[in-house]
């Protein structure tokens, strides 16, 4: 180890990485600047929040599926939110829905997904010692942590957490009188989100800087794994959209606490007119959805990138349409900024504007379809190896298709009049964004667990986890389409009060039961995750026989990732099952000149250039050594 470390020091000396290796518990596990540890911190925090977010949804599913149920047994946890008759307080029901959304969208699928894998994989897959700024990276995690602590506290205050939906539309969120959750809970929500925005921006700036500036020799943009492309574009989207959420939140803070009227106008409460005039509530919606829609892709793109990587590896085939994948991701990234108003078709927006946004929205179907096509054609006739990671990736493709199709309906401004804010929307985005991204997260964890902890997760438990979750997700969300088409609005406390929804009571019972089983199935994953961390089978260096750079590091990479030189890259990351090659994969670090038997004609020409460069490099190494000696 000592020799490895000294070699590392030699190698990093000219990279201006003068790390002091005096890791104690605090610098190693808490205030770490190592991207790998920060990635794991994001992952574990994300898992914690996923459990909370999931548990909240189970509580409101109990209310929706079993409206007559006695909930006295929840009193130790919920206290006064369960009333004398054992019923859930309607105000707290709204808080549950709001917190479930906020936690899942921001804390689990943004920080937990993008934070984990961008941090963990970017330096490893592009061949860098660490992120551009380890300190900023650490700050990014700790701001996220602070944001989480504040949100967590808000769950336990007397008036309850924010309750106006995760979109926190004014005037509901702007006026304390509107509902209990709009008081202190809403204030804490805004403070927490401010920290979260700062955290995301610090992370995003770091990811972009690292991808652009710290790639290893030979790692051109056309040789980047699709994961890195996805993380890069995600960071760009975040960088452009989170500041807008900041603006929206800032004006909301002014309205709430300083008495301005950006969003408030002509409101009467109990017959009394409020002094605010001249505000516009639609303005908030524009600002919010300018973040809110790109946020969908911030959540989804990393999952798509992870899936591309895993599907190619476990099909033992090059990804079909590498360039088409990049172009479609770019297309999605650009289009994500010009479709926000499809969330506002029924908000009183100009209908002509609606048809423009409808047109732009439907265009997104094209790059999405390209991606689906490429996943399917990569799988087609591949030597499929069904690891748990692969199964979760295929699951993602399934959700992406079934959830994406309903998006075409919702994107139509006319059909949206019927479907807006119904369970149809809930079903749509839980499949295409929630479950798909969650499956991408799971796929990533199963796939890169050996790299993260040096041990393998148990595959059999992984299969059980997959099938229970996969079937469970469809059982939960598929019936919601019917309820939604029937016109039942989301966020409503009770189904039994209306004649037309009465008949869905048993369907709702079914959904709730499925949700409880699916949620319980996650315990299998939790056990597998924490057990394998300490007791799992020891991982080999390259368990999936993969081509990318992270598998060339030692099984447990130290701070600096590679002992000695960072390997150079000579080929794209998808040389699987290349005709003529001895193995069914050729790592990116193998020069074309070493594989004449499998080179394609145009690659044979590159060999000459490559030989010149290698000769030049060797001459230089010799020169360097003579200098240092």
């Amino acid at each position, binding site marked *: 180890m000592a020799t490895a470390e000294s070699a590392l020091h030699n190698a990093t000396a*000219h990279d201006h990485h003068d790390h002091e290796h005096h890791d104690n518990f605090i610098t190693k596990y808490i205030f770490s600047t190592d991207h790998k540890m920060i990635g794991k911190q994001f992952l574990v925090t994300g898992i914690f929040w996923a459990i909370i977010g999931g548990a909240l949804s189970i509580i409101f599913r109990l209310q929706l599926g079993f409206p007559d149920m006695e909930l006295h047994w929840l009193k130790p946890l919920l206290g006064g939110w369960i009333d004398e008759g054992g019923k859930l307080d309607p105000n707290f029901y709204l808080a549950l829905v709001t917190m479930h959304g906020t936690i899942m969208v921001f804390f689990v699928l943004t920080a937990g997904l993008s934070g984990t894998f961008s941090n963990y994989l970017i330096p490893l897959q592009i061949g860098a010692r660490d992120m*551009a*700024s380890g300190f*900023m990276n650490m700050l990014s995690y700790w701001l996220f942590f602070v944001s989480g602590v504040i949100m967590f506290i808000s769950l336990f205050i007397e008036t309850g957490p924010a309750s106006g939906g995760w979109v926190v539309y004014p005037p509901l969120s702007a006026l304390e009188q509107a509902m209990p959750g709009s008081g202190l809970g809403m204030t804490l929500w805004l403070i927490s989100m401010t920290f979260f925005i700062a955290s995301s*921006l610090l992370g*995003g*700036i*770091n990811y*972009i*800087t*690292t991808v*652009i*500036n*710290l*790639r290893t*020799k*030979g*790692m*051109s*943009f056309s040789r980047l794994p699709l994961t890195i492309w996805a993380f890069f574009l995600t960071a760009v989207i975040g*960088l*452009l*959209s*989170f*500041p*807008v959420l*900041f*603006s*929206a939140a*800032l*004006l909301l803070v*002014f309205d709430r606490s*300083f*008495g*301005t*009227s*950006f969003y408030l*106008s002509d409101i009467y409460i109990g017959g009394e007119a409020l002094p605010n*005039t*001249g*505000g*516009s509530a639609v*303005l908030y919606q*524009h*600002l919010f959805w*300018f973040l809110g829609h790109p946020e969908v892709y911030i959540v989804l793109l990393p999952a798509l990138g992870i899936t591309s990587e895993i599907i190619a590896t476990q099909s033992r085939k090059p990804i079909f349409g590498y360039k088409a994948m990049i172009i479609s991701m770019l297309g999605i990234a650009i289009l994500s900024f010009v479709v926000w108003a499809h969330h506002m078709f029924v908000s009183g927006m100009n209908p002509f504007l609606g048809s423009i946004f409808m047109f732009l929205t439907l265009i997104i179907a094209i790059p999405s379809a390209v991606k689906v096509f490429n996943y399917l054609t990569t799988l087609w006739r591949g030597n499929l190896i069904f690891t748990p990671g692969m199964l979760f990736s295929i699951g993602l493709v399934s959700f992406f298709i079934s959830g994406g199709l309903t998006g075409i309906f919702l994107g139509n401004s006319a059909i949206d009049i019927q479907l807006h804010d119904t369970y149809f929307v809930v079903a749509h985005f839980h499949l295409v964004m929630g479950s798909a991204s969650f499956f991408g997260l799971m796929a990533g964890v199963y796939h890169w667990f050996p790299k993260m902890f040096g041990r393998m997760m148990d595959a059999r438990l992984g299969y059980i986890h997959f099938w229970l979750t996969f079937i469970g997700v469809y059982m939960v969300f598929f019936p919601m389409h019917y309820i939604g088409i029937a016109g039942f609005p989301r966020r409503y406390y009770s189904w039994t009060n209306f004649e037309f929804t009465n008949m869905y009571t048993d369907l709702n019972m079914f959904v709730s039961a499925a949700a409880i089983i699916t949620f319980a199935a996650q315990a299998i994953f939790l056990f597998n995750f924490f057990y394998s961390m300490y007791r799992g089978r020891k991982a080999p260096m390259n368990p999936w026989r993969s081509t990318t750079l992270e598998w060339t590091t030692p099984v447990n990479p130290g701070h600096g990732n590679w002992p000695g030189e960072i390997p150079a890259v000579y080929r794209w990351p998808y040389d699987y099952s290349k005709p003529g090659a001895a193995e069914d994969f050729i790592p990116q670090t193998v020069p074309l000149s070493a594989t004449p038997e499998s080179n394609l004609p145009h690659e044979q020409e590159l060999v000459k250039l490559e030989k010149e*460069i290698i000769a*030049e*490099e060797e001459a*230089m190494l010799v*020169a*360097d050594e003579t200098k240092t000696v």
Partner: protein
Amino acid sequence: MEEKFAYVEGAEQPISMHPKKFALWLFIVTVVMIFASLTSAYIVRQSEGNWLEFDLPQIFWYSSGIIILSSLTLHWSYLSAKKDELNAVKTGMIITTILGVAFLVSQWYSWVALVDRDVYFVGNPAGSFLYVFTGLHAIHLISGVIFLIIVLISSFNYKVHSKNIVSLEMCMNYWHFLGGLWLYLFMFLLLNH
């Protein structure tokens, strides 16, 4: 080492830039997005009517002059650093910092002028937006002044010269950006109030 560098910048090596400088540009992008969203919110809100009409304070013209002047002196300081004229660097930095503070003071008096014509933060959004623009810009400008002071101190320790100019360069990029941002806001207000 010399040959190594030449190689590193050759065709095989991916393009790269000083990571900190690059990160600053990305930060600038986020600030651009904040003000882009606020000014477009202004336009959207204005088009809905019920908009208070008032004259912009004359003092904005003076503050614009001050900020342009400060950018010029900072640039002079930068050019001097490139030529290793360290006294000129210090002088330039001091003048820039003073002008930066002067700008903040003049912005404060623009608020005083607004209050004089009965335009308050709380009231019609037309006025509130003006306070938000100037206030948020001032907060960023304070961070710029702090950056100036940090570079100023290191210039007094003879740490800013042609071989060690990245911090001054970053400071200058940020300051020019903040000046440009103010000019944009002012133009925007002149055209749209």
